């Protein structure tokens, strides 16, 4: 994931052989193709079915009156995308962008958006058997955005629910 821009077209092709239904429960499949991202010191995963593109962070255009979670817009191949500060969505503190920061373009139904993340770690296939339920002790404000949790390479990885992120961004006032 070191290239400036990485489309997931190739990944989608591989995904089709390993994922019969991208929205099915991970436990029903042998592998689950995900993009691993870092927020603060935590690792999260995005289903490759949602991911369109990964690009280096670049200065975006702030929009007056926008909430902190949706601070601005960026043009991606002629399409205007809203920036989503994923740290703030998950209840983390704001942070300055660094050289490692990335914009991950994701899509859910008709909504396309650029997620601002601290870093992209890898695009990988995780065994479905490693996934389990979200721990009940987790903060409900954050747990609502998680579909499932896995233990991968000595780290806990939480699979983000992009649909829930969109729903909450629409409803937050």
């Amino acid at each position, binding site marked *: 994931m070191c290239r400036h821009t990485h489309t997931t077209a190739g990944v989608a092709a591989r995904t089709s052989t390993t994922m019969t239904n991208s929205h099915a429960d991970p436990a029903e499949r042998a592998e689950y193709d995900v993009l691993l991202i870092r927020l603060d010191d935590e690792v999260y995963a995005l289903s490759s079915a949602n991911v369109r593109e990964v690009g280096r962070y670049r200065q*975006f*255009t*702030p*929009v*007056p*009156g*926008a*909430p902190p979670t*949706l601070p601005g*817009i*960026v*043009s991606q191949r*002629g399409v*205007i*995308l*809203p920036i989503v500060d994923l740290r703030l969505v998950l209840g983390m503190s704001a942070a300055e962008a660094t050289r490692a920061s990335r914009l991950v373009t994701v899509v859910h139904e008709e*909504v*396309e*958006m650029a997620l601002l993340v601290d870093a992209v770690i890898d695009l990988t296939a995780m065994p479905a058997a490693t996934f389990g339920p979200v721990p009940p002790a987790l903060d409900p404000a954050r747990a609502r955005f998680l579909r499932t949790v896995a233990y991968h390479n000595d780290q806990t990885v939480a699979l983000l629910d992009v649909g829930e992120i*969109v729903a909450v*961004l*629409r409803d*937050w006032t």
Partner: protein
Amino acid sequence: MLIIIRTTRRRYAVRHDDVAALRVVARAEDLHRQDVAGRPYVGVELGPLLDPADRSDAQRRHALIVPLRRRNVALLVDAVDTLIEHAAPQPLPSLLRDRLRPPWAIGAVLINDQLVVQLDIREVARSALLL
């Protein structure tokens, strides 16, 4: 046609049809003069209205005169950059547009590979009168 204006930190686009006149303002007191109909100008700094950190220390200002029903609002900016005759602004993504408070931004236009937010300058002027 769009007018591209510049505050200290940002550029914005506004519809030319929404602006009655562009004036150079050497002193803030000039804004208290009345127009030909005897209506006073209400002067408002546009930069800090949109972003509290966007403040100018320039003396010489440009004013966008926006006529409302009973008053003229003079929105002060650092500069008027350019006029774009055939601009094609795109609407903002609905996910963002529906969350704007206040809803002054209505679109964006790509100029030299940079997105410039388009403002509903009449709505900005109306709101400025209430502040």
